[in-house]
């Protein structure tokens, strides 16, 4: 099992992802520079967090057209698992690989703190090690994480079961008070209809060992490993 982490200019969570794969899973991880046109035979791709291209124009807008994205799109079209975390989620939306977009947090504040996430779907390639209804404690760190989509798109996401994570309180209650950025319907993470491209604003790679305050993110990486072992 080999997992690729794409590095864009301005990525800053690429090492966290790399380490979560390498030390959290004991699997092989490689970096892939955004200018490459080769995924080096990886089994899954991570688009990490950060501020690619300084968030110029819109967060993720320019990275969505980086050379490597052509290969990432082809890989995803062939069913390969792709996960975008934080800036990676913004890039996936800007690249049209996931519906909707991420806007400025409703509070206008950059929010960097642990939040609670409700697992809505435990039958995806990225969440099978969790149970539906689990409450995870995972950090967020973003200024543009307010998920937005047209009401009919949101209805479709809900109807198809594509909402994977929602912001909630410690008891698993979804409410405006537990929504850190104003995201529509408290959405924190979604998956595409085919079930192989996931985007989320919270950082599971920053919650993989007790020293980091939580190990709740490990299940995310273990789920992907279990999925890759099955296919």
């Amino acid at each position, binding site marked *: 099992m080999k997992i690729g982490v794409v590095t864009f200019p301005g990525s800053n969570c690429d090492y966290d992802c790399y380490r979560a794969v390498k030390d959290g899973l004991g699997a092989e991880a490689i970096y892939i520079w955004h200018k490459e046109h080769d995924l080096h035979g990886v089994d899954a791709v991570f688009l990490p967090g950060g501020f690619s291209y300084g968030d110029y*124009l819109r967060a993720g807008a320019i990275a969505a057209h980086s050379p490597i994205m052509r290969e990432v799109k082809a890989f995803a079209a062939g069913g390969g698992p792709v996960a975008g975390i934080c800036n990676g989620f913004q890039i996936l939306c*800007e690249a049209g690989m996931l519906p909707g977009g991420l*806007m400025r*947090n409703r*509070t*206008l504040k950059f929010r960097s703190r642990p939040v609670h996430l409700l697992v809505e779907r435990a039958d995806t390639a990225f969440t099978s090690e969790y149970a539906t209804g689990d409450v995870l404690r995972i950090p967020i760190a973003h200024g543009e994480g307010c998920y*937005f*989509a047209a009401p009919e798109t949101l209805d479709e996401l809900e109807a198809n079961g594509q909402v994977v994570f929602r912001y909630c309180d410690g008891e698993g209650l979804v409410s405006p008070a537990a929504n850190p950025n104003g995201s529509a319907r408290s959405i924190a993470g979604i998956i595409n209809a085919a079930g192989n491209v996931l985007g989320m604003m919270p950082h599971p790679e920053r919650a993989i060992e007790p020293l980091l305050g939580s190990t709740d993110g490990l299940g995310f990486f273990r789920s992907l490993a279990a999925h890759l072992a099955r296919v």
Partner: protein
Amino acid sequence: MTDYRVEVRVTPRRGILDPQGSAVQGALKSLGFGGVEDVHVGRLIRFTLQADGDAEARERVDAMCRQLLANPVTEDYDVRVEALAAA
């Protein structure tokens, strides 16, 4: 070929929350500027473009907006194209 001066104004889509605009409106109010409503903050993108006529220039800029300059999910855009006098 004609040189055009192009301006693309990108604004938050009408009807969706614009927290930046609200914050600016609040600040204007607190400075004592009365009667200010409906404040929105957007981006101005300006460039020159060579094209074969107005229609082609507009068509190309529209494609740029759809592919990169604006996000149709969250933003509206408005294009101004003006032919520059030949040097």
